[in-house]
């Protein structure tokens, strides 16, 4: 489904798709399940239509930008007994799964702090301005949805947060979130669409430091407290061996969705679980303060020349 005829024609031709629709409502009589990967502001209205018709939905992250929308989708799914799975893809990455297991097993002892830096100079092949509409959110809703979900998965609930971003009437390209989790772990998250950052989460605990690549085929580096050498490697599962790729993760996510649909059991990330990261997103935007870049104070009076001559 795509409202632009040119793109549906391209999809039909490229993938040999029999039916393509300009409106999701036209597709309802023809489908059993739907993968919804549209701009965030349309997630709730479209997913609610689908769920209300009893269609199982795999919804891209972020589930929505407000918990009210999440609740409406969860309620719609409950009413019709349809499945609502959310595409928080990184839950399927062996490295990030291993990190969860290692933390749960107490590998680092008591965890003190984490530091996430994730960013890339944005160059996704975006076809319309909808993704940059204020109702879609910016980098926090986009990359932040992944990171906030991982943090909640690894460390449990968040107690307090402070949030700053660089939006000035539009959507943010850079953001910084400082969090204190309910278990006392504190941390900082730096997100960017304008810089290539290391894409890592460094977790410091009493027994050592774990550096985990936050992307999909990343490495883990474990340094024992007071240690002189680090252990670096990749996590594997029977189904996912290195080098691993984004395609493997999407495949794992699809398999999970298909399993959930066939067995009528919960998907890996049901709506109620994904709602937790949306609550944090909502809190970020509610408590938003402006983010100043370190080079900006050096730019005072840049317009002095034109002010004088104009």
């Amino acid at each position: 489904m795509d409202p632009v005829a040119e793109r549906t024609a391209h999809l039909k031709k490229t993938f040999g798709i029999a039916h393509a629709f300009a409106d999701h409502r036209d597709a309802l009589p023809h489908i059993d399940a739907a993968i919804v990967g549209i701009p965030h502001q349309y997630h709730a209205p479209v997913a609610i239509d689908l769920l209300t018709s009893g269609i199982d939905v795999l919804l891209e992250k972020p589930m929505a930008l407000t918990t009210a929308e999440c609740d409406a989708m969860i309620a719609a799914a409950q009413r019709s007994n349809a499945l609502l799975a959310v595409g928080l893809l990184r839950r399927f990455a062996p490295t990030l799964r291993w990190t969860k297991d290692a933390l749960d097993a107490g590998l680092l002892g008591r965890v003190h702090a984490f530091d996430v830096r994730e960013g890339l100079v944005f160059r996704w092949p975006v076809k319309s301005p909808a993704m940059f509409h204020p109702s879609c959110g910016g980098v926090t809703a986009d990359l932040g949805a992944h990171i906030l979900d991982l943090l909640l998965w690894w460390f449990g609930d968040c107690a307090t947060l402070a949030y700053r971003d660089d939006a000035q009437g539009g959507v943010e390209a850079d953001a910084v979130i400082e969090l204190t989790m309910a278990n006392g772990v504190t941390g900082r998250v730096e997100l960017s669409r304008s810089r290539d950052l290391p894409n890592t989460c460094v977790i410091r605990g009493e027994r050592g430091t774990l550096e985990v690549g936050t992307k999909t085929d990343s490495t883990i580096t474990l340094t024992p407290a007071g240690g002189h050498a680090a252990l670096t490697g990749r996590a594997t599962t029977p189904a996912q061996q290195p080098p691993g790729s984004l395609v493997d993760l999407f495949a794992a996510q699809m398999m999970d969705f298909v399993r959930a649909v066939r067995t009528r059991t919960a998907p890996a990330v049901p709506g109620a679980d994904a709602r937790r990261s949306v609550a944090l997103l909502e809190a970020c935007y509610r408590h938003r303060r402006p983010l100043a870049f370190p080079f900006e104070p050096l730019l005072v009076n840049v317009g002095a020349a034109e002010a004088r001559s104009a």
Partner: protein
Amino acid sequence: MITPLTNATVLVTGATGFIGGRLAERLVVEHGARVRALVRNFGRAARLARYPIELVPGDLRAAESIDRAAAGCQYVFHCAYGSDGEDDARRVVNAQGTRHVLEAALKHRATRVVHTSTVTVYGDTPDGPLDERAPRRRTGFAYADSKIDAEEAALAYVDRGLSVAVVQPTVVYGPFGNTFTTKPLQMLKSGRVIVINGGSGLANLVYVDDVVSAMIVAAVHEAAHGERFLVSGPAPATWREFYTAYEAMLGRPSTISMTPEEARRFYKTAGAPHSTLAAQIIAALRHPAVKRRLAATREGQLAIRAFHRLPAGLRARIGGPGVALRGAANPAASDGDARPIHPLHPSKIAFMAAKTHVRIDKAQRLLGFTPQFDFERGMHVTGAWAEWANLL
């Protein structure tokens, strides 16, 4: 600050780029203008989208899209140019695209169009002072030559009743810049950069905000009508100073001096293999994602073990991102630095050798334009940005 641009509807082409992006930002923040940006590739609009800027889909090659975007605009800043693709396609974007912008501005009765040209319209410039009276010279390179066509096309509209001003920036650098900011930093990091004659040529540098200020003045100042203005910094630096500033940010020297003749010869021998299929395949195999996948195979593991048994010098030649040195005849082989040298495109050699001093007297006299960033201040801000941008 209330200015003639406050609440005016302003079209910016090229607003997802370096100069256009900073211009759009300052038009909104400092002037309170209603900015409309013509966007071809929304994937590049992330920074622009931070502001309440209207993002209008369009392409310089499609006249009707420009016409839609220009409707109701009092001011038009034309910053877009053909930045990718084949030479012919870039020529079309620069020359025909500019005509489309001017035609739309004329039709919709824009108060002023500011056309962004470049100092390269003057071709290979001689040593000594250069001002707007110098002849425009073709060099045979698509970008420079088509910018001459674009500039001529823009000024031809003055006779048709449209108010046009042309700015000709020199070497523009600053936060979020590519050609003279990010790219030199990346090249200095990944290998060695050729400077001509020890970098003694003059780099007529201008910090991005000074270019933007000049463009804004050119949009609103009466005296800018029908005129061209060179826009540069307060004084030229040398290319040696330019690269030294970046080397200082990175903490190590990474330049190598060549004469123009040596640089040309080096380009022929080191640059030429990239045009063959084999070189393209080798370049593709060096891509990190491809390397990772190949390295995970059994054959890949064997190849890696064999590679590590090679002598260090040979390993460096195979493994580097740029072009490795070949043979002792090479001017750099004797200094013991085995890092690959980035070939310098022939179109840049004369440009870097020249001791041209671009004069901005006309912009100063007619527009009252005074650059606010000398080399030291501009590089100070750029360094702070580069650190934040994780480029160092």
